[in-house]
Structure formats: C-alpha cells, structure tokens
C-alpha cells in the first residue's frame, strides 16, 4: 500500500543547489580558488617553477662549474661577502658553493625528476590501465596483479633495489620512480574507465561502429583526466621527496650535480658543529615545493571528486 503515495510525489523534494550558469572550466577555477591555501600553493609553485627554469640567468653563480667555486669560501655563514665579491645570502657549503645558487639549480633537478617521472609514469600507467579496462579477461588480471604487487611494496624499497642494480644517475632515478609509480595511474585509469565504459555515450559510439582507438582517445581518456590530474599532482610531490631521499642516502644523482637532497646530505656532517645552513635552507626549499604542490592537490581532489559534490 505504501506505493500509493509515491504516485502523489513525482519527484523527491531535494533542495537543489542554486543553479550557476557557468562553463565547467570557469566553475572549476572558481571552486579551486575557494581555498585560499590552494591559491597560495599555486602562486608559490609558479614562483618556484620560474626560479628553477631561469636559474642559469638569475643565480649569482653556476654551482656546477667547479672553476667558479673557491674552496677558500667554504662553509661561510649566511650574509658574508665572499672572495668573488658578492654576498652569500644563504652561506656556502664545504666546497665554497653559494647555497642560494645551489638551491636554484637543485630545484631544477628536483622538478625535472619529479615532473618528468610523473609524466612518463602517467603515460605508461594510463595506457596499461586503459588496456586492462578495455581488454578485460586475462590481460586485465595480469596487469592488475602487477599493480597490486607494486602497490604492496613500499616505494622506497623498490627504488632502492632498482638503483642498487642500475647504479646512480639522474636517468636511473627517473626510471626507478617510473617503475615505482606507474601502478597508481594504472589503477586510477582502469577504475574510471570501467565506470565510463558502461555509460551510454560509449554504447552509442560503439553502435556507430567507431574504431576502438577513437573511442579511447575521444571518449574514455578525457573522462579519466580529472582523477589522473589529482593522482599526478600528489605523485609529483612524492617523486620529488623520494628523489631527495635517494640522493640523501647517496644513491641518487651524482655528486657533481647536487640536487636538494644531496645538498642536505653534504651539510649533515657539519650540522653537529652548528653550521646549520648547509642542510637547513635546501630543506626549506624542498619543503616549500612539496607543500605547495600538496596544497594544490588537496583542493584539486575536493573539486574534481564527483563523490563529494552535492
């Protein structure tokens, strides 16, 4: 009998959010900007990226050019004027390297490794995830087993092992990071693609006998973008931290081109004697970079997550 009243109620009276007449892109921007912290993160990250890109032009010194370094200027306190005539605002390391310049160049490596590995891992992972979702069956099982295996293994261990086999070097670090990270993308894309596949427009596209490739690139991939962006943001931050950690452990980039992690590691032995700046400032740079990315990522996740939307 309880069904009878249903007749009187054609639709439940859910309070509908005030309809905003905005494009999805505009709405995305305004929702993102709702968090002041996320906006701050974005601004800081843009500044950091600019500093990293233009480091060769704005850094007081080329910290990789040993000819420019003066051992006599080693371990100078922040603010001292060195032999070359300019002020070491953040001090120098044991080789007389200007810390400010070292940090600017170090950021280059950190961002390059972080973003580069994320892009490659995203391409590899997304393709495999798409393949798993689309092919299904045994292909799906094999790929997802690999993903599970990869995800259950702590990233630091996997990276350590790979570097132990391959040796040091920027490219090897990137490779290790890609191997560590691809699984996150694969899982994300597969999950989204499986949901999207059932949607009507895919059926419609299949009815029109469009080639598979077109369905994937025109229909599936664009819908996987939002979650992929969220994962990628978080993974870039993780990759940067992991690279720094590996370099700190002496397994990352070579000593001639120190990244932030290696700069921090170099300062370790001097810290006990109170020369804090060699480790401190690169660490701050690393921290600010990672925090700015994570702040953006947090907000992106809230904005792009359809589950949280009312």
């Amino acid at each position, binding site marked *: 009998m309880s069904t009878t009243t249903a007749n009187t109620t054609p639709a439940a009276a859910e309070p509908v959010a005030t309809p905003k007449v905005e494009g999805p892109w505009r709405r995305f921007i305004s929702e993102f900007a709702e968090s002041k912290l996320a906006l701050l993160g974005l601004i800081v990250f843009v500044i950091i990226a600019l500093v990293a890109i233009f480091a060769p032009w704005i850094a007081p010194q080329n910290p990789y050019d040993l000819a420019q370094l003066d051992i006599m200027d080693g371990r100078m306190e922040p603010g001292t004027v060195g032999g070359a005539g300019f002020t070491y605002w953040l001090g120098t390391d044991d080789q007389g390297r200007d810390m400010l310049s070292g940090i600017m160049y170090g950021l280059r490596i950190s961002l390059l490794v972080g973003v580069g590995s994320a892009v490659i891992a995203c391409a590899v992972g997304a393709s495999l995830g798409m393949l798993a979702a689309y092919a299904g069956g045994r292909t799906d099982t094999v790929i997802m087993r690999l993903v599970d295996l990869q995800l259950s293994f702590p990233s630091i261990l996997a990276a350590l092992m790979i570097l132990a086999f391959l040796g040091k070097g920027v490219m090897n670090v990137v490779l290790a990071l890609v191997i560590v990270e691809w699984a996150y993308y694969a899982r994300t894309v597969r999950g989204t693609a499986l949901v999207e596949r059932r949607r009507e427009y895919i059926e419609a596209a299949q009815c029109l006998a469009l080639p598979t490739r077109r369905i994937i690139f025109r229909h599936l991939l664009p819908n996987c973008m939002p979650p992929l962006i969220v994962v990628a943001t978080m993974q870039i931050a993780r990759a940067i931290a992991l690279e720094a950690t590996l370099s700190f452990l002496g397994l990352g980039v070579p000593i001639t081109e120190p990244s932030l992690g290696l700069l921090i590691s170099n300062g370790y032995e001097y810290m006990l004697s109170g020369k804090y700046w060699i480790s401190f400032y690169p660490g701050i740079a690393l*921290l600010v970079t990672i925090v700015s990315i994570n702040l953006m990522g947090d907000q992106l996740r809230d904005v792009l997550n359809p589950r949280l939307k009312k």
Partner: protein
Amino acid sequence: MSVYLLRRLLQSVLVMLAMSVIVFVGVFAIGDPVEILISPDADQMERERAIKALGLDLPLWQQYLSFLGNALRGDLGRSFVFNEPALQLILQRMPATLELALGATFLALIIGLPLGLYAGLKPKSPVSSAIMAGSILGFSLPTFWVGLMLIMVFAVQLGWLPSTGRGPTVEVLGLHWSFLTWDGLRHLAMPALNLALFKISLVIRLTRAGVRETMLMDYVKFARAKGLSPARVTYVHVFKNIMIPVVTVVGLELGSTIAFSVVTESVFAWPGMGKLIIDSINVLDRPVIVAYLMMIVLMFITINLLVDLAYSALDPRVRLENK
C-alpha cells in the same frame, strides 16, 4: 576458520616463491655473479674452480633450484664484507628495526588518534584547521630532513637528547631492547618520532574521515536518541567503528614503516637492518641484499596475515563469514 588460514598460508608460500624468482633474477642474472661472488684478485684457474664450485656453469633454472634449496635451509650466502652468513647479519639487526618501527607506530596512534578525533568532531574549529594543515605538513616534510632538524634542535642546540646511536640495551628473551632503560628511551625518542611523522598524518586523516562518516550514520543518531552520554556515543559507538579502518591501515603500513626506517636509521645511525642494507648497497654486498629482501617479504606476508586476523576480531560481520 582453519580452512581460511590454510588458504592464506598457501597464498603466502606462492608469494614467497614469486618473490624469490624476482630476487634471484634481479640479483644473480642482471649482475654478473662471477664478478660479485669471486674476489677480483683471483687468477684464471681459481676463477674456473670457483665457478664450478658455485655451480655457475649450470643452466639458470638449476642455479635457481639450488638457490631455493639453500634458502630453504636458511642459507642465503655469506656477506663479502663481514664474512658472516647474510641471514645471521640481518637477524642480528632485526630487533633494533622492529623496536623503532613499533615505537613509531605506537606514537602515530597515541598522537594521531586524539588529534583526528578532535578534528572530526569539531570540523569547524580553528584548532581542527590547524591540525589538518599540520597533517599536510606531515605528509610533505621529507623524513630525512626532519630528522636532521630534530638533531639540530634537540641534540645540538638544546642538548636534551643524544643525536645518534641506540644507547644501552637490556636483554630480554635473548633479544636486546632499548625501551626498557631511561637512556635507551632517550635514544629511541627522536628516531621513533621522526619515523612516525608520516604515519601520524595518516592516522589523523583516517580518523577524521572515519569520524565524519560515522557521525552521519543512523546508528550514531539512534545512540543519541537513546539518551547515551556524548562520551559514550563518541568513545564506544563511533570509536569502535573507526578502529576497524585505522587498525587495518596502520597494520598494513607497518611493513612500509619498516622499509622507511632505512632513512631514519641512516640519519640517526640506528644500528638496524635498514642501515645495514644501505651500507650493503653502497658496497654491493649482494648476499646481504638478497637476505634483506627475502626477510622483508616474509615480514610483509606475516603482517598481512596478522592484520587480517585483527580485522576479523574487530568486525563481527567478517568474523561470521569466516566461521
């Protein structure tokens, strides 16, 4: 229940086998084992004799089988550096690492749970915003750098805590532990906190999300409708439900905590197996690397099994299904 356990054990054996293949291929096939296992000073005659003795002239699958047979007997090779059985080296250092990881997990729970609970119960308060901002920081801070900063502040500047090492240990059940003496605890404090930092953030977020989700459940409202005190609603009805995901995740994370102790042990010169593995990688002491990997995998499997058991103890719905 026993059928379930049996199936899980079988699965575990399969995973171990798979890992042993990966490790074998990784260590013995990619690198040149001759170079690794035989002293570079040896002349041609000696080398050939050694190759025969080590069975390196046999086909790969036979080599793998003998590797497997040795491994089953607990023989994972001898360290080139220490000239001791690799497994023994690892086992000697395992208690230190376990102590560190368990200490960190303990800290993560006693710090993370109350903070997460507060942030979940009072989402609008500025304190909660501060807690959540802090947890982003906790996720972002590179562990090794925080370790250095801890040393700088508490050991160098303030002089409150020792900067490195494990301090005195007490032998209980044949193993050495630091946490039983005051000085040992002082040594343990900073490394444990350092390793816990990431997990604290994780526990805060898990707890907060769990609280917010659970608070919306009908059964919480019903508990309030029964006239229970707010404390009882929070600490019994809400808390018991969020303990399920928290215990599961923290338990599963114990494996990764052990893995990440590699970093903390390097910073604080903590004499555990993480420091050993970094040193071994740096000098390419491969038998030790192999032994470490196999031990880690074994620990992972054990931890997963224990977490599953804990999970079914906490959640009556699961308990029933497995009976």
